[in-house]
């Protein structure tokens, strides 16, 4: 383990900083006595949202999936507020410019099923052709591993500290 390649502006550090900040905001107001399953579930949702959001913010808008994630989170929070007023906001993922749709017809038949599944998995993947989809998938995988790693380490620290 060497400390030589610490990059203060790398994905890991950005994500970790944001995630920790969100964690403290989530955990701070709670008291120790709140341990009902519902509370825990709520907290889980918030932590998960915090993780996703901090990851997406760390990537900014450089990637399609990060933009889609941020957009989805924003519209979800917005729609949740609007539902209380009796309105239902239609949540639709923003479609990016889908160029090369005609190319899909040539190759899409071969990998259609898996490509569709992959599009469902990767946020914002519905409107991408296979080429960009694979690019996004690669970056998404890398960010997911970083996210899981940092959440795990955060969990270890919290567990160790209490």
């Amino acid at each position: 383990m060497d400390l030589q390649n610490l990059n203060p502006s790398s994905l890991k550090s950005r994500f970790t900083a944001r995630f920790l900040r969100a964690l403290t905001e989530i955990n701070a107001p709670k008291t120790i006595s709140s341990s009902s399953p519902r509370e825990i579930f709520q907290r889980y949702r918030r932590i998960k949202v915090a993780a996703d959001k901090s990851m997406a913010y760390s990537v900014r808008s450089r990637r399609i999936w990060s933009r889609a994630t941020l957009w989805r989170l924003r519209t979800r929070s917005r729609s949740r507020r609007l539902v209380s007023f009796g309105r239902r906001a239609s949540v639709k993922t923003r479609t990016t410019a889908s160029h090369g749709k005609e190319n899909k017809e040539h190759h899409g038949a071969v990998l259609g099923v898996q490509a569709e599944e992959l599009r469902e998995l990767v946020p914002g993947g519905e409107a991408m052709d296979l080429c960009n989809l694979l690019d996004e998938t690669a970056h998404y995988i890398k960010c997911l591993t970083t996210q899981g790693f940092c959440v795990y380490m955060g969990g270890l620290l919290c567990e160790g500290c209490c």
Partner: protein
Amino acid sequence: MEKDKAFIMAEVLNRTATRQPTWNELNCATEQVGSYFLNPNWDNSMDQSDPFESALSSMVSSPAASSVPPVSGENVLMRELIGKLGNICNSGDTFNSTHTSFSNTPLNSPPKLNLSMVNFPNHSTLAPFSADPEFAERAARFSSFSILNDPLMDSFKLSGNQVNGSQSIQNSPMEWNSCSDKKNSGVSRSSSPENAESGVSKEESSVFQQITARNDARNRKRKSVPRGKAKETTPPAAADDKVASENDESNSKRSKQDVDTGNGNAKTANDGNSKPPEPPKDYIHVRARRGQATDSHSLAERVRREKISERMKFLQDLVPGCNKVTGKAVMLDEIINYVQSLQRQVEFLSMKLATVNPMTDIAKDMFQSRVSLPQGIYLMDSSAVPAFAFGYQPQQGIPLTETQFSMKTQGFQLPSVDGFTDANPHVGSIWEDDLQSIVQMGVGQNQPQSYQGSIATGQVKIEL
């Protein structure tokens, strides 16, 4: 065009003996460039293509700036490039970073080189090659540059492609790969040097184009007439017959894909010799293989297919355990499984975080000292992160074994985690211990364990 390149190689070899002392400094320069590739940062990959270009141009221009006669200066530059490429090919572990940096640069804008070497005189003398086995090995690897046409080059046992000089050599990386795949070179190449070299071949090709643009009088053998290009022609002398047979074997005819035929702005050999080549920005040059259709649609299809396969190869490296998998469909299945398991893992871990009792003051300590915290996290080096995924082992066609953890105190079920395997013994054992502790925590929810004292955040270490 092969002759020109062969010529340059010949010249380079000629001067190998005389330029020995400069080889060391070139190698030092290449190390510097190599360090650019050893920085595996996805985010900075966009920026790293620029350092690479700047490094390359600085390296290229620096010997030219030195007070050497222009004739030998060019050869030094050539050797620099070849040496650098050799270093790149030698270091297989830089594949990922180079690949990322090159996959992010769009095809239509290959980097511009500010080459100051412009005056390649017409060499009319052929000198025997000096026996340089290392160089021979490197040159053999670069058979994609189609070094041919010289009986002297036969010793390298290269097979070349038909290259039409009028065509601009600004191929996309995948085209170099595809044409190099078909060569009968005696050197077996793995895909990574190809990709690394093909990524660099864009810069290289601009250099070579400069070289070939100078030598209009060379005799070249061509198989097909490019569209709208005037070219040197006549079938070569008998000395080239041996090489001609090699050309027949590897037989590819180059065709150009014009989106915009009216432009006609592709490079001709008669282009201004004084300006550096301008990369075409609106169309991609593709080399068609023998027996394949050459209309623009199928060419575009082929380019797309090659792009897709290139990305699939990269994904294959990302996803653990996919080296044995062949075929796009199975590969995609594996990727889907992996992404799903990663997402589930994040869910699981955040659930685990949620069950941990909230700590107030310690959390604030963590937040305030978060500068030191990332350092604590970095104590696990980055190679551990890909192995992080809970001992993920891809199963081909067999449903993944799933272990489900259900906490008694909570009514819902945790997301299932993929089965622990012995693939990553170190990581697996740690996760098992940790998960057992989670279960204990979950069961003993109402009696939280309290540790005496607080552990300093900067001193947390995980030993693998």
